[in-house]
């Protein structure tokens, strides 16, 4: 029974900056219905939202797959963007490759990946320059 999960799949659209966050919003709604502790809901929502924004800024969108298990949430964010050349550097707070026009909107402060790391229990990045990036995240539920 504990292997049973609720699987949700989203296409993260890059067309509209304002619509970024719709996948995290949908997941948040589902977690609330399950009565998940609000602190855990917040962690999942923030990690996903940052991931969605990253896909919109850097990769013209991608896909998000969320699996809700009894005791954890697995999130897989995959894109076919430019990839991350130096993952360690990208994980540094304040490091950003976002273009100026994005920064003017208040994004691209170099906090996305660190925030995702901070709000998850496990995070793994697989990236190939020119091919794309896949980020696996796990949030344990209390």
């Amino acid at each position, binding site marked *: 029974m504990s292997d*049973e999960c609720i699987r949700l799949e989203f296409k993260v659209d890059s067309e509209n900056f304002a619509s970024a966050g719709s996948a995290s919003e949908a997941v948040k709604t*589902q977690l609330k219905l*399950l*009565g*998940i502790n*609000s602190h855990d*809901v917040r962690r999942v929502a923030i990690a996903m939202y940052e991931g969605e924004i990253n896909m919109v800024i850097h990769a013209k969108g991608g896909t998000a797959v969320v699996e809700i298990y*009894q005791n954890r949430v697995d999130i897989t964010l995959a894109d076919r963007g430019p990839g991350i050349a130096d993952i360690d550097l990208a994980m540094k707070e304040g490091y950003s490759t976002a273009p100026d026009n994005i920064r003017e909107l208040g994004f691209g402060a170099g906090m996305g990946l660190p925030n995702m790391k901070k709000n998850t229990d496990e995070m793994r990045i697989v990236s190939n320059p020119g091919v794309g990036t896949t980020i696996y995240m796990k949030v344990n539920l209390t």
Partner: protein
Amino acid sequence: MPFEKRFVTLDADKCKGCITCMKRCPTEAIRVRGGKAKILYERCIACGECIRACSYHAKKAVYDKMEIIDGYKYKVALPPPALYGQFNNLNDINYVLEGLLSIGFDDIYETSRGAELISEATRNFIADGKANRKPIIGTTCPAIVDLILLKFHDLKDNMLTLLTPVDVAAKLAREKAVADTGLRPEEIGVFFISSCPAKVYSLKSAFGVKAPLVDGVLSVNEIYFKLINEMPKIQNPRELSKAGVTGLSWAVSGGEAAGIFGNVSFAVDGLENVINILKDIEDDKVHHTDYIELNACSGGCVGGVLNIENPYIAKAKIGVLKKYAPVSKNNIEQTGKSREFFCQEKDFEVSQAFKLDDDRVKAMTKLKQIGGIYRQLAHLDCGICGAPSCKAFSEDVVLRGQSIEACVKFRLPELGGGKER
């Protein structure tokens, strides 16, 4: 929730069973069953949106009738600043206050005085670093308090833990009445005059306090009709008003936030806007802000459904009254009260009304079933089934025994219904 909150009711004879109120309800608390709008009270935040929306006046707010004051030896009215915005050509608040004394009250205590004290207490709260988490969310609008406790559990830590202006006014009014009359506190009746059903609900169910601080909650519209008969008879009213611009401003969206003075604050009004900002705070998107004022009604308290005047006209009228008033006439030192006097007596409690099941595995099973039902529906959010959205209908099928065949898709073959007939 403390008890069943039936502060909005239905006049079934007037209800046509249309879907207007159901579609406007911000918490999806209404269903149309058997041709009548039914409220799921555990989800109702008493905001009054359905009352505002209903063209047939079938939705009613619950409040106390004026006769309730007769049960007390000494009667004190707590008029809110929104009341002053209801009258034409009013240039002096004292006419309204004298009017209240003419219609049966022995004394008045303006809630704007409580507001000025709470503005100061909030500034102290921020300066003392008492906030659990920023931005601090104001808790004066009870519909918003209930909304957060129902749907935004994570934001409980952001909520201001001070009393509301009405609470403070009620406490001080009763103390003053005891001192003035020598009567026992229970012989004194303290009555708020409300612009909305939410305030009736919060005061009667003692939000943030151990027991109700008022003995009754009257409505602005009823008091208004009594006042307009008396006010023209008043000549040279006494100087009864003891509140300034800060207190008066609380009637209108932005007034509460303005009372925070030097700190970074802003105000949001109208439920749709409020829900959007709550989502943003939840997602950690609101930075560099100390305080946010939230109002369920567009325009603030002047927009409440128990008022008479158009909210924007009322706002303009209050603007006129503010013109010659000083910034503030009340301060905490003058009351001789400690800072604790202005603090909540008990914590808010979140509501689990939306939780599918206490057992997580069972909740997951239900969520899957809901998803399964949803996929079979018309996805028109038409409301024909009696639920406000296809998502809500899916929940009704799984949780409330509704038949999936109530969906329009199963009734109209041209929508490609799954049923062969």
